[in-house]
C-alpha cells in the first residue's frame, strides 16, 4: 500500500516546530525516526495532512550529565542508546534493553523520544523510563514542564503529552552505588515484541532493599509497575524466600489482555519466571 498524499515541513528549531503544528491544527503529526509512523502511513492507518519532520532540530540531540540527572535528547537514536557510554553508566536499563529493541536497521533510525511518545505497551524504552523513575521534558508554545514517568503513561498509545506538545528530552536520575538492576525479555524471535519483558531497579542499603521498581511490559495497556511485588521486597534481604514471595504476588499486579495465542495465564506464568530470573541475577550480583 502507498501512503495518502501529505504535506511536509522541516523546522529547524523547537519553537518553529510548535508553531507549524499550531498553524496546521490537529491534523498534523511530528515525525522523527518514523519507525512506527511510516508503516502506519503506508497502511493508511494514519493519514495526517502534514508531517512535521523534527529530525533536524539540533536542540533535541545529545546526551549530557546535569547534576544528578542524565539528560537524553529525544532524538537520540536506539543505536546510540546501545553504544553511548554515559547511558551505559548512568541509565543502565536503557543500555540493557537496547539490544532487544527491534533490529539494527530500525535501531539506526528509531529515536528514544519517538518510542516513548508512541508508548507502545510492548516497547522496551517506555517501560525502562518508568523503571528508572525518569522525568519527561515537554515543551509547548507556552512553556516547559517535566512529567514524572509514573504520571506519563496513561493508556494504550496514550501519554501525558498534550496535542502540539513536544517531548524534547528524558531526564534519568543517575545510578547510585547501592543500585542493582536487571533486564530481560522473553520473545519468540530476537527483536520481536516481547511475550513478556521486565526491568528491575533496586536500591540496597546495608544489604537490605530500600527501594524497588519492577516494571513489566507487554502485559497490559501501558508499562506496569508490579507494586505488590515491589512492596514485599522493601526492607528485606534479597534471598530465595524474598524472591519467591515477590513471584507469588506478581500475578496479581498484572492485568494482561485476553489473547488467544498468548493467554493471560501464560503471561502471568512467564512474568513469574522472568521476575524469578531477574531477582536471582541481582541476588548473585550482591554475593
Amino acid at each position: 500500500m502507498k501512503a495518502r498524499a501529505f504535506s511536509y515541513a522541516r523546522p529547524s528549531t523547537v519553537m518553529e516546530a510548535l508553531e507549524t503544528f499550531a498553524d496546521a491544527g490537529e491534523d498534523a503529526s511530528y515525525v522523527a525516526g518514523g519507525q512506527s509512523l511510516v508503516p502506519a502511513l503506508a497502511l493508511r492507518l494514519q493519514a495526517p495532512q502534514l508531517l512535521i519532520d523534527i529530525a533536524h532540530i539540533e536542540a533535541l540531540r545529545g546526551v549530557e550529565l546535569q547534576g544528578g540527572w542524565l539528560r537524553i535528547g529525544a532524538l537520540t537514536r536506539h543505536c546510540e542508546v546501545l553504544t553511548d557510554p554515559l547511558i551505559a553508566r548512568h541509565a543502565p536499563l536503557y543500555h540493557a534493553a537496547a539490544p532487544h529493541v527491534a533490529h539494527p536497521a530500525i535501531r539506526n533510525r528509531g529515536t528514544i523520544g519517538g518510542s516513548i511518545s508512541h508508548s507502545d505497551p510492548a516497547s522496551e524504552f517506555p517501560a525502562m523510563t518508568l523503571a528508572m523513575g525518569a522525568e519527561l521534558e515537554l515543551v509547548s508554545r507556552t512553556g516547559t514542564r517535566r512529567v514524572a514517568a509514573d504520571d506519563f503513561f496513561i493508556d494504550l498509545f496514550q501519554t501525558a503529552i498534550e496535542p502540539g506538545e513536544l517531548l524534547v528530552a528524558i531526564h534519568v536520575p543517575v545510578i547510585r552505588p547501592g543500585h542493582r538492576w536487571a533486564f530481560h525479555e522473553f520473545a519468540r524471535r530476537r527483536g520481536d515484541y516481547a511475550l513478556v519483558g521486565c526491568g528491575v531497579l533496586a536500591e540496597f542499603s546495608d544489604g537490605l532493599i530500600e527501594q524497588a521498581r519492577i516494571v513489566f511490559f507487554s502485559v497490559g495497556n501501558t508499562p506496569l509497575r508490579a507494586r505488590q511485588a515491589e512492596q514485599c521486597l522493601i526492607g528485606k534481604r534479597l534471598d530465595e524466600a524474598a524472591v519467591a514471595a515477590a513471584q507469588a504476588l506478581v500475578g496479581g499486579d498484572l492485568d494482561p489482555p485476553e489473547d488467544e495465542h498468548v493467554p493471560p495465564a501464560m503471561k502471568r506464568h512467564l512474568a513469574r519466571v522472568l521476575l524469578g530470573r531477574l531477582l536471582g541475577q541481582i541476588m548473585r550480583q550482591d554475593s
Partner: protein
Amino acid sequence: MNALTSLDRPNSYIGRSVPRPNAKRLLAGRGRYVTDFVLPRMLHVAYVRSPYAHARIVSIDAQAAREMPGVKLVATGQDLARLCTPWVGTMDHFKGMKSPPQLPLPVDKVVWSGQAVVAVVADTRALAEDAAETVAIEFDELPVVVDIDAARMPGSPVISPELGSNLCFHGKIDTGGVDDVFANAAHIVEEEFHFGRHTAVTMEPRAIIADYDASEQQLTVHHATQTPYQFQDIYSRHYGIPESRVRVIAPDIGGSFGMKLHMYHEDMAVVGLSIMLGRPVKYVADRIESFVSDIHARDHRVRARMAVDADGEILAMDVEDVTAIGAFSAYPRTSVVEGNQVYRLMGAPYTFRNYRADLQVVFQNKVQMSQYRAVGHPIACAVTERLVDMIAAKTARDVFEIRSGNLIPDDAYPCTSPTGYQFEALSHHACLAKLRQMMDYDRLRAEQAQLRSKGIHRGIGIATFVEITNPGPAFYGVGGARISSQDGAIIKITPSGDVRCLISVTELGQGTETIIGQIVAEHLGVDRNRIKVITGDTETTPHGGATYACRGAGIGGETALQAALKLKANVLSVAGAILQEASEKLDIQNGWIIDAATMHPRVELAEIARIVYFRSDTLPPGTQAQLSVTHHYAPQGYPFAFTNGVQGCHLELDVETGLVNILKVWVVEDCGRIINPLLVDEQIRGGVVQGLGAAFFEECAYGDNGQLTNGSLADYLVPMAVEMPDIEIGHVETPTLDTQLGAKGVGEAGTAAASAAALNAVNDAMAPFGGSIAQLPMTPARILKALGHI
C-alpha cells in the same frame, strides 16, 4: 599424492561447486524483477477487497472512484466475466473431485476475507488506492465455514450449493488386512496431529504486468512465476487469444517455492484490464495482500496409528487425514495434490505392507490452500516419524535401532510401497549410519543425560524421509492438466564459438541456469564462461514443464545433456569434414577439437564456427553444418525419481518458558548424482529453515469469523537468522539409471523432514516431564500447555 578423480578430467563441471554466474548481477542490484519494469503508458491497479469471509455482494457503487484524479478504469466481476471464461481446479484422475468455477473477480458473492472484488486502474498505485477507498460495496453477510469439522457437519452452510456439500475430494487406500494386524499387534501407538496453515512469504511478492496490443492481438505478460508456459496456455485459452500471440516472460524471480505457479484472481484480472484499456497494467501484491491472497499451505488434522509386533517390527499403519483448502481448489494443479501426497507418502521409508488411509479434502471460507515446497511431505514425515518414536519409547528401543530394524533394506530395490509408489533405489540405511556418525549420537545422548541432572533439557530427534522428484506425465498430464512433464532445450554455437542454451526450466534464484551451464559445458566440451543460459520467455525458449516438484536438475538437466551431445556430434561431423578425419576419432575439450586418442589439439571450435558461418564455400559439397540443435526429453522410466534421506535435530527446551533454542540440524540426503554440491547444500539448508519455520514459527491464524488475524510480518513469524542453527549436510549418491545424468531432485528434502525431526526432538526433551506435543507450529503456549504449566 592425491589420486585423480573424475573432476580432474577436462571440462569437468558436474560435481563441482562453481558459483552462480548471475549472483554478481543480483548482488550488484542489477536484477530485473517485474516490479522494476516500467513500460510506456503503463497503468497500475489496486483492488478493493472483501472484509467478510462469506457474503453476498448486494451492490457496488464506484461512481466516486471513477471521478477521482488519474483513474482510468473501475472494473467489476461482471466486466471481466465478459472477457474471461471460468476455470475449474479439478483433475480427472482424482475421481469424484469437485470444485466450483472461478472468475477473475466475483460476480455475486465473496468466499474469503481479502478476496479482490473491484479493480481500480489509475496512473499510479497511490492514486488507484485513493480511488479504491471511495468504492462502496454493500455486502450481505453469510454464515461462515471455518472449522474442518463444521465444514463436514450435516446441516452446516454449503459454500458452493451447486456442489451439494463442502467435500472437495474423498480418497481411500486400503491394502486389506489392517484390522487383523491391529487386532493381533503386540503394541499400538496412536496420535492426533494438527498442522497449521502457513504461507510462502517470498522476498519478492507476486507481480505481473499485462500488456495487450490490440493492433497485433498480442498479449505480453511479464510475470513473476516459475511456470511461464502454463500461464501462456491459460491466458490463451481463457481470453481466447491464439497461443502464438501470447508471450509470457518470467524475468528474475525473488523466490517462489511453489507459490507462484498457481492461478491468482488478481493476476487473471490484470490481463482482462489490459485488454479493456489497450495499455499495460501492473499489479504488485504488497505484503498485506500477499498474506490474504497467496496460497497457504498444509492445514491438516491427521489421526494415525501404527501397529508393531513384540520384536519391534512395524506391521501396519492406519491414517485419517482431513485437510481444508479454502473455498475452491486451486487452478490448474488442484488443491488435492497435497493431501494425495500426504496419504501416499505415509510410512514410505518402511517395510510394512498393511496400510489403510482415508483422505478428506474440504472447503471452507479461507484463502486457497495449494502446493508449496515439499507438497505433503512434511505432514507424512512428521506423522510417520513421531509414531515411530512413540513405538521406540513403548518398546524401550533407541530411535536409531527402531529405524534400522524397519527401514527398507538398501539391497531390496526395486520395490513398491503399499501406496503404489515404485522405488528404483533408495539408501535409507547408508544415510542413517552416516547421520549417526555425523551427529556423534552416543556422545549427544550421554551429554543429554548429564545436563538433565543440571536442569538443562535438550532433545534429540531424527526423521527419515522419502522425497518425490522428477515427476512424469502421471503427475498432471494424465489428469487432463495442460502442464508438461517434458522439457526442451535449444543450444547453438555462435560465430565466435560461444554457446547459447535456451531451456524451458526456469531460474527462481535456486541456480537452475548455473547447473544447466555446467552440464552443457561438460558434455559439449567448452569452458563454462563461454555459455550463456537463457530461461523464462515463451517467445524464445522451448515449451516445457519449467520448475516444479524438483524437476529442474533431473529432467531439465537431462534435456540439456542430451541436447549438448547432439550438438557435439554435429560439431564433430563438420570438424571431421574440415580436418578430413573420421569424426569418431575427434573429441572436444576446452573449446578445441582434439584428437580423441592423443588429446592433441587440432582446431579451435571458434574456427569451425567461423568456417561454417562465413566460409561455407570451403566445406565439401553437400555439407550442411548444424550448429544449432533442439532437443526435448520426457521421463519414460519410473513415474517419479524418489530420493531419500534422514535429518537430525538437536535443541534445548526452556521448560519454564516453552522457548526452544535450536542447537544444530544434520541432514544426510541422497539426490542421486550431485551436479553442484554448493547449490545442493544451500537448497537443503533453505529447505530446513522453511521446515523449522513450520515447526516453531509460521502459522496463518484465523478467528472464528474467518478473518486472518496475523497477516503482517510483525505478527506472522518467519524464521530469522538468529534463531537458525548450523546445518551440517552429508550425502549418499545413488544415481538414477533412468537418465544418463543420474540426477534426482533435492529442493524438497530440507523441508520434508526438518519439522518432523524438530517435533521428535521437542518431545524427547519433554520426556522426563511426561508431556507430549503433536501440533505444529510448536509455540511456547502449546509447549507450556503440554508441560502442564498453563
